[in-house]
């Protein structure tokens, strides 16, 4: 029997080409899309940007052109529980969460993979720029071949169990090649918004969202400099991120930057640019792609944000789930809540969440 493969389709060019490639390779392909929770609101009509009616229609058209079935699955409740609530909780506790990682872990490679397998699929394929490779009896997560498009950072929380059932059909191509392929396949080359980050907000304004959904976490408090001298008042710590310059609301001779948020004293610590920069960070909730935690210190490249460049560092494991990182060069915007993801060459070894 031909293998059945579920393709997560968004209506965008990447996942459309992914579906077309698999179909061309002779697989029995079906398209699938999740309906996610979205904040009720005017501008988006209460629609999540990842699954707006227009994108559903576009994906459905593409599926029909490829002559594959297409289904939309309801995931509003699980998404709300594991992504939106997580987002609100984390912001409230003073860190800057990355909901896309959480969504990939719990929704796409959780709920969606589970449903796809239950529908008889052997694999879930998506239009991510990343690659999976089997070496020996291990599955490796590799960066996408197009360095500018690589999305492995956001996938660093999945493991062997998931990778085994995962395909990234476009990961070995460049974006330009994907556009060419779309033309060859006669597919519409609709571009999705480059980042669907915070897809569930009505207006992309997370500060407004937090005011509305977690008003209690918005406690005003003091702003101090790094010597502890009070120099102003802040409007609630969740509204600020590390490294932020604009919007602090204090006029000074030199521009001030957010250095730290002290949740226990509800204090925002700001200072001059020269005070920024750290090369030590500690990380928890570490996920090892291979499933085998490394215990010895090792060299790796570390990526601290979705779009950041990877920097050389020492990884200093403490135990299976926690480690310290010593960067070769200090960095200005190390942000608790974001992921630190480690690579050796193309291979993503895993990642964890930055605590400090």
């Amino acid at each position, binding site marked *: 029997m031909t293998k*059945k493969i579920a393709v997560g389709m968004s209506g965008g060019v990447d996942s459309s080409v992914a579906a077309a490639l698999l179909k061309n390779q002779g697989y029995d392909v*079906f398209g699938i*899309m*999740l*309906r996610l929770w979205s904040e009720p609101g005017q501008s988006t009509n209460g629609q999540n940007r990842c*699954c707006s*009616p227009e994108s*559903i229609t576009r994906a*459905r058209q593409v599926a029909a052109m490829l002559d594959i*079935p297409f*289904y*939309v*699955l*309801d*995931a509003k409740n699980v998404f709300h529980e594991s992504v939106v609530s997580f987002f609100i909780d984390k912001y409230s506790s003073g860190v800057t969460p990355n909901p896309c990682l959480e969504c990939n872990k719990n929704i796409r490679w959780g709920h969606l993979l589970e*449903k796809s397998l*239950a*529908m*008889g699929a052997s694999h879930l394929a998506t239009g991510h720029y990343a690659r999976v490779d089997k070496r020996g009896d291990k599955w490796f997560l590799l960066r996408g071949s197009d360095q500018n498009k690589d999305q492995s950072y956001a996938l660093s929380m999945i493991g062997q169990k998931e990778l085994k059932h995962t395909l990234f059909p476009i990961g070995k191509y460049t974006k330009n090649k994907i556009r060419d392929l779309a033309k060859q396949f006669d597919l519409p080359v609709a571009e999705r918004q480059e980042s669907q980050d915070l897809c569930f907000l009505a207006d992309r304004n997370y500060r407004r969202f937090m005011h509305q959904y977690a008003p209690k976490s918005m406690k005003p408090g003091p702003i101090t400099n790094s010597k502890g001298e009070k120099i102003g008042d802040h409007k609630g710590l969740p509204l600020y991120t590390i490294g932020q310059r604009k919007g602090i609301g204090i006029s000074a001779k030199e521009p001030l930057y957010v250095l730290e948020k002290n949740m226990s004293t509800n204090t925002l610590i700001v200072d001059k640019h020269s005070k920024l920069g750290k090369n030590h960070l500690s990380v928890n909730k570490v996920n090892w792609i291979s499933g085998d935690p490394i215990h010895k210190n090792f060299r790796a490249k570390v990526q601290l944000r979705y779009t950041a460049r990877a920097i050389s560092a020492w990884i200093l494991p403490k135990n299976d789930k926690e480690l310290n990182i010593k960067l070769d060069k200090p960095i200005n915007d190390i942000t608790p809540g974001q992921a630190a993801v480690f690579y050796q060459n193309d291979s993503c070894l895993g990642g964890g969440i930055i605590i400090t």
Partner: protein
Amino acid sequence: MNKRIYMDHAATTPVDPEVLEVMIPLFTTEYGNPSSIHHWGQRSEYILHSSRETISKSLNCETDEIIFTSSGTESDNLALRGIALEAYHRNKNNHMIISSIEHPAIMNTAHDLKTKYGFELTILPVNQYGLVEPHDLANAIKENTILVSIMYANNEIGVIQPISKLSEITKASNILFHTDAVQAAGQLILDVKSLGVDLMSISGHKFYGPKGIGALYIKRNIPFRSTQTGGSQENGLRAGTENVPLIAGMAKALEISMSRYKDDTIKMTQLRNLLIDTILQEIPDCYITGHKKQRLPNNASFVFDNIDGNELIMNLDIYDIAASSGSACKIGNPEPSIVLQAIGLSSNLSLGSLRLSIGRNTNQDQVNYVITMLPKIISKMRGTP
């Protein structure tokens, strides 16, 4: 052979080849406007009138009591709004009664008349089988009641209402009775006299005719007003050039259905019972919805504990079985079915519904395939080996 199995005839049916044959020349050669004076117009008018005759025969009514519309939905709208508009102009009686399991074409129209135009609305409960109790109707009637609209057969659970019994109650108080017979047409007797109704809606695509064509029976001389302005077609009650090819197709389809409905009923009832009996027996925590006997010959409907109806439909589709669910929604936004809640099911159970609706060409092999696959799919979805 097409191995896909279509068990969704309540959603729509294929056009009968004979019906198609009747329609084709009306697009290409006999394409006149029935209002025109010349040869083409006369031919079209002849075809239009013959179609009206065919349909009026099936409904046991006069030709001028048949108004062609664009759909079952339009027929339902025209029935309620036409009566409401006239009542509004007479400026007195303004209360309407519908059942709690009406199709959205009635339900949403009645709500619209209530919220935007101030009509009073009573929504009758139904019992656990989906039946309207005559005494509930009798009790709901008020001084100012103008219209009762109760569907003949339900689209989700196939339950057949005792229309003639219900219409007797309204007749006694001089209240108009409309029935949405969209699901019934082609399967049940449509005699408006024995049913005792004043208005009745049908739709071509439910009985092997084309989509986008419907009819409304309006009894002569009842207080009724057109809701659409334009030409004087359809007795001045529905302006717009008549869609002659589709009208002729619908008439032919109804004629064919009526001529074979006895045989079809016997065959479909037997297959339907096989579906119902086997599924109830083979699948744990599964319940029939609607009435065991008083139901459309083609409808087998169920709810399953611990199953998402939307996902069930997708899983069936993967196995080449086309069915539907009251909660199924193509954009992944399932809402518990209003009908299933009205018969007293919890919203949880209402989300796990399945409707299998067979057709005149459904065969034993197809039914056998469905009754072997469905238990497997359900137990896989429930995660029980």
